[in-house]
């Protein structure tokens, strides 16, 4: 059995950045990637807007990925492509399969989980109607258009206003398709504001908030959909139905971290993020197994994925080369208006500031983020506006971290928009 200091599962943006960081700190690193090339989902994201935070440039997905792939190539990092990990054990054995080596098992001192996420399927929604051809997740449609060079359909309705759905509304329009509507059940879009402006508004594509698809029509291929407005309880309001003739329905109804291997290894998951429970160094509940990127929690900007992956990469190298230290743990909780906080656990013995990432439950303006411990407010920060579609953060300085007297919560006060 071959041994590595660090095995990174997944060669997308998270895996690449984590591997580079781990290697630079002296670890022998292997990346295992199931696709033919590394870069992950960025390879099919040919639009720009990536890297504004990290490189102060607007890059396309493949360009952003290339910056990291180039760095990997400069180093002696092993990369296995076309290789799927079949199982992961708590003692860090990785069993994988590919065409040249068959099924084989490797041993690592530390593991970094960077498997990314998958799209929530239409099946999970219990939508009424038939199941004809022409129903695609937005990401599958993106793969057909940008990688395979085929157009899935010409008359399109998009259900859900996640970022990929918004991007695909524009992409399909540019390819000559007519996008009739984007329909969102919530009163707000879960996508980035800039995507709503650049992908819908600029192309005159209507966004129907508080609307859901009532029915899908067509036997062989989709022929139409019926949408309707919903009330506060998400129940359709009779009389508000609208019918669209279309040959394609795209679903952009959420992303789910892909944690089958994580579960199999016995790692504890967080109900809110659907990813592993982690410390600030992105170590999971199993010592020496780390997680970063969309497998940990769904990010909206890849720049933050890279940042998080570097934290995990550094910690994995450190663990592989010098083992673990004793912990002193407090938990973090999501308080008022906050849906989750990550990391869920803080180890006071780990040096450095702790950046607390969180998402809000509803759009608020003129708000204050507070980090509280019991009755005590440790930190306050003003935010002009916060939205569920955009991840927020607040930095807990090292001086406060080492002094934490108990569990902390992040709460948000503000005016509803």
């Amino acid at each position, binding site marked *: 059995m071959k041994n590595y200091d660090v095995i990174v599962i997944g060669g997308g943006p998270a895996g690449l950045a984590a591997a580079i960081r781990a290697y630079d700190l002296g670890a022998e690193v292997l990346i295992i990637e*199931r696709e033919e090339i590394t870069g992950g989902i960025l390879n099919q994201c040919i639009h720009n807007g990536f890297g504004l935070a990290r490189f102060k440039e607007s890059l396309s997905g493949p360009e952003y990925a290339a910056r990291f792939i180039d760095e990997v190539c400069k180093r002696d990092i092993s990369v296995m492509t*076309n290789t*799927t990990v*079949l199982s992961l054990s708590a003692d860090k054995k990785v069993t994988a*399969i*590919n*065409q*040249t*080596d*068959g*099924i084989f098992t490797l041993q690592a001192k530390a593991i970094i989980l960077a498997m990314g996420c*998958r*799209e929530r*399927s*239409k*099946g*999970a929604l*219990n*939508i*009424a*109607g*038939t*199941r*004809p*051809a*022409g129903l695609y*997740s937005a*990401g*599958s449609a993106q*793969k*057909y*258009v940008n*990688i*395979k*060079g*085929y*157009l*899935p*359909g*010409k008359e399109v309705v998009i259900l859900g206003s996640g970022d990929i759905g918004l991007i695909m509304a524009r992409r399909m329009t*540019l*390819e*000559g398709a007519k996008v009739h509507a984007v329909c969102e059940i919530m009163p707000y879009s879960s996508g980035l504001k800039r995507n709503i402006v650049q992908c819908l508004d600029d192309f005159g594509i209507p966004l129907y908030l508080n609307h859901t698809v*009532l*029915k899908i029509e067509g*036997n*062989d*291929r989709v022929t139409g959909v019926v949408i309707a407005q919903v009330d506060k309880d998400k129940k359709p309001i009779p009389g508000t139905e609208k019918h669209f003739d279309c*040959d394609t329905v795209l679903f952009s109804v959420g992303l789910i971290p892909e944690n089958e291997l994580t579960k199999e290894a016995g790692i504890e998951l967080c109900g809110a993020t659907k990813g592993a429970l982690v410390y600030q160094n992105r170590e999971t509940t199993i010592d020496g197994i780390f997680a970063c990127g969309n497998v940990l929690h769904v990010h909206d900007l890849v720049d933050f994925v890279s940042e998080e992956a570097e934290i995990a990469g550094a910690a994995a190298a450190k663990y592989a080369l010098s083992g673990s230290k004793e912990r002193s743990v407090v938990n973090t909780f999501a308080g008022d208006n906050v849906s989750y906080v990550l990391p869920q656990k803080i180890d006071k013995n780990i040096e450095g500031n702790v950046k607390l990432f969180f998402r809000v439950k509803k759009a608020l303006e003129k708000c204050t983020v507070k980090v509280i411990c019991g009755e005590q407010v440790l930190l306050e920060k003003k935010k002009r506006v916060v939205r569920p579609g955009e991840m927020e953060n607040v930095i807990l300085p090292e001086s406060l971290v080492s002094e934490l007297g108990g569990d902390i919560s992040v709460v948000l006060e503000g005016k509803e928009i």
Partner: protein
Amino acid sequence: MFDVAVIGGGVIGATILRELTKYRLNVCLLEKEADVAMGQSRANSGIVHAGFDAPVGSLKATFNVLGNAMMEDYARELGVKFKRNGSLVVAFSEEELKTLKELKARGELNGVKKLRIISKEELFEIEPSVSKNAVGALLAPTGGIVCPYKLTVAAVGNAMDNGATLLTEFEVVKINKGENAFTITAKDGKSITAKIMINCAGIYSEEIAKAAGDNSFTVGGRKGEYILLDRECGDFVKHTLFFTPTEKGKGILVSPTVDGNIILGPTAEQVSDKNVETSVDGLKDVQEKAAKMCDKVPFGGTITSFAGTRAYCNIHDFIIEESKTVEGLINCAGIESPGLTSAPAIAKFVVEDLVSKFFEMVDNLDFDGQRKPDDFFNNLSVEEKNNIIKENPAYGKIICRCERITEGEIVRAIKTNPPATNVDAIKRRTRSGMGRCQGGFCQPQVVEIIARELNIPIEQVTKSGKGSYLLRGKTK
């Protein structure tokens, strides 16, 4: 000319076709869709019933009990998974307990073995998820589960391996009875001739009989809606759980599937057309009833919902006989539940007792009833898998990541009888695309593999046959 034409590639047509190939007969199967198992054998609960439901003395009762006893060997020969997981009919009131006693008595008269009424304590012990409102249950240990479309595909495949012909996209529109043979014409004008004809057309069996000149029965459609839960929830229940039948019907069931999912449903709604739409009310009904049967149903694990149309007949029993008006026409109609369970027994009866009147039945000495399971690769040891990958590296490439299906298995499904020629057909054979992402990741690759193996342009690959095209041409 064929000796026998079987019309309809559902489980009944499939098992009859296979049975026919045990004899030296030239036989064919005519199927209107692009693949077999596209009607009720596709969207079906997959239950191998014990046999306590059907009225004493009915064909349903007879074939159910016979079929149940045959199913284990039958499925094994065809390499299809079967599990005798046992059924429970759950009572929620003293009155329902009384009905259970009637059911038990009826079952015993039908020849069902090992039936037992159990206390709620025993019930909660063997099925902890059952609602605490339950007061007892009828346990039928002989109840089982099988995958209806896999059984159908395997039976047709095995029949083809033994010489039968499959004609897909052959929608019968006209039947002419000549002196010694039927001329059967399809919608696109193709026609075949056959000495005798077996009508296994499910919800279309009335139309087929009428086309041949037999107006003796009517068949209607009844729509059933289902919800399927992820394999993650697979151990939620072990037995197939039924409500106690009332005058209003049987209610829905909560059951594991043989592939490890949980299935909830079906509703029962009379429909005028062959409508297979799910409805908001129907799916809500399934959820409410499932929640009545069990505590904490893991609805969060829903991966898909679907509907199917089941035939029901004005006679309320199976029709399995030679037509009284058209010589050489054998009708297998009104095969409602427990049709799947009964299929192997019906096939044996039809061939041995009905077809035998028309031909001298000479054994086909080359008949081999064994079929290599479609999921054979999955059941191998690591060493065996590695030997196969060395020989054929396509088995080392995972295409469907949720169900871990390799390119080798997909190519094999395209090349094995009955050949899979579209995305859904691949899914039914390999489970590729059947997992939690529902084909989100693997469909583009599956489409490419189909185009490559069938040597057709990628735009011609369909989801499930004619009209269900997936792509509208190249990008700019």
